[in-house]
């Protein structure tokens, strides 16, 4: 079994995640899309680690996980803060960035 298949799987998962980010208005769902993209990247990293029989890819994936965990903590806190302020977690609501 060629580990490259896992890379293809990772590509598909990444595309799905990105589509979710673009399409879903619920901030939590979009955030989950981001998590999926990170995990897809992790999968490809691990697959390449296997292909090259090295540990660096795994270590990198490990770091990504840690950073993602930190990111989730902060991101969800932001979502809660926004929810408190607006009673909504829709991504379309905060349109103040308008030019």
């Amino acid at each position, binding site marked *: 079994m060629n580990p490259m298949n896992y890379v293809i799987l990772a590509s598909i998962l990444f595309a799905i995640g*990105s589509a979710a*980010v*673009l*399409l879903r*208005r619920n901030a939590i769902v*979009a955030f989950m899309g981001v998590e999926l993209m990170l995990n897809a990247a992790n999968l490809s990293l691990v697959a390449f680690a296997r292909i090259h029989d090295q540990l660096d890819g795994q270590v990198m994936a490990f770091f990504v996980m840690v950073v993602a965990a930190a990111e989730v903590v902060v991101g969800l806190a932001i979502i809660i803060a926004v929810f408190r302020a607006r009673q909504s977690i829709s*991504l*379309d609501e*905060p*349109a*103040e*960035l*308008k*030019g």
Partner: protein
Amino acid sequence: MLSVTWLLIAVPLVSAFVLLLAGRRADAYGHWVGVGASASAFVVGLIAFVQMLGLPGEERATSVHLSSWIPGTELNLDAGLLVDPLSMTFVLLITFVGTLIHIYSVAYMEHDPDRRRFFAYLNMFVAAMLLLVLADSFLLLFVGWEGVGLASYLLIGFWNQRNEYATAANKAFIANRIGDIGLIVAMGLMFSTFGAVDFATVFDAAPQATAAQLTAIGLMLLLAACGKSAQFPLQSWLGDAMAGPTPVSALIHAATMVTAGVYLIVRSAPIFNGAPDAQVVVALVGAVTLILGALIGMAKDDLKKALAASTMSQIGYMMLAAGLGPIGYAFAIFHLVTHGFFKAGMFLGAGSVMHAMNDQVNMRRFGALRGAMVVTWVTFGLGWLAILGLPPFSGFYSKDKIIEAAFVGEGWQPWVLGGAALVGAGLTAFYMSRLFFMTFHGKARWTDDQHPHESPLLMTVPMIILAVGSAFLGLILASGDRFTHWLEPVTGHVEHHEPVLPVPVLIGATLVLVIAGVALAWLKYGGRDVALEAPTGSLAAITARNDFFQDSVNRAALQRPGQHLTRTLVYLDATVVDGAVNKQARGWAGLGEASRRLQNGQVRSYAATMLVGLVIVALIIVVGGR
């Protein structure tokens, strides 16, 4: 003694500043300070004059170096004074007549709350005029020239609480500006031609310059003189300048201001001597102005404006004489001096009349003032006789000489210029007699609240002194050609020229015309009732009454085109210059507006942008990496 000539200028100038800066606390004595300053200037001038008399003719011109002014390589100019018979004549005239006017003003302006300020301006006027006549370079002369303009502006608009008076001051100032441009251009031409603007260098080099250069300089100087001396076509400000208090009018017309133009022409004699064309133009301008002024004077019912028109006409005589070249210079100055006396006397008389008649200036409301104001009548009458040119009064000696000189020459010039001078004498006789008879003779046409009375001594004494001068100065100065000899070091010695007509004929013709004019005026205004309202009159009368529509002409010929020009420029500026800038700005704004739409505030749109960018980058890498 001559080295302290600068005191002549400094004393009135310092006095002016002191009076202006001292403020209200000097109100009580300020006018006497002003009188004292003027009088001490006269004393200094008199001493210098006596000292000068002791010198032989050719040594009488003295330069007084004051300081280095514009040190430079191209233009190196020192500030200095030139004291010679010509400037000394002016110094005496200015300070003497000026002092008398100062004294007169003490009484005339007694009830004006701003009398101190008035005297400050008067002193400034005198100082500026003295600087003008004493300067030894055109540039320093220009400083005095501008000072005169400023002082006249301040004095004409002295009662600037009345809008039309302020407008009159502006008008005088602006008309003078036009003349000033002429002087500036003339100085520029001198600098480019001779590399200097001081009298000595310029006049020494003048004979070497081409006629064209000299003509150009001369015409520009003429423009300057026209502005300052109210000559055609810049005469329009003089009538309105009557807005100032009457002593100001006297000062402007007799001693300062309008005589500056004549002084400039005579002073620049070496330039004009080399430019016959410019001389002809000067003479023609003088001739036109003298006829024009006389015609205007015939139609005016306003006492002061009629006198102003008369001044215009008389200055026309002087310009005519100055334009005649060396034979006329001395007579121009001679007439200037006698005119200074009798015109100052008449203006002060007019002020006395106004003083008595509640500031009424309409001559149709006067009449029979002879009985009520004997001193004024006599002094004014002497001035009247002097301006008529009847022997043995001053005007005869000066004006008759000009008429004689005007008839000297070849071709058309003597006939045109001389004819104008001759006719002008008759016209002068008519309008001055009309003025005199309407004011002092005939029946009283006063309004009910007018109670004519003689003016106080402070006013009558200067009038008497001036009247004496009007009567006898000409005789004194003319006997033995004393005045001409006195001026010879400046104007040069001239051989006697015979006019185209014999002199006795000319004198006779002049006297006949003068007497005819007086008789006509008596018939029309002296013996008969004068209508309270001016008759509509003929087209000519209306034209003259409206100053030959000078304001309309100016408006149509200068103001309107100027307005159109500026409007066009503004339009071009707004559409072309600003238009280009604005269009460009609008273009950028539009670009910003367009790019603003990208910034729609939708987070997901931004995410979409990022992803599309990622796809494009990936595509480039994949396709390009191959």
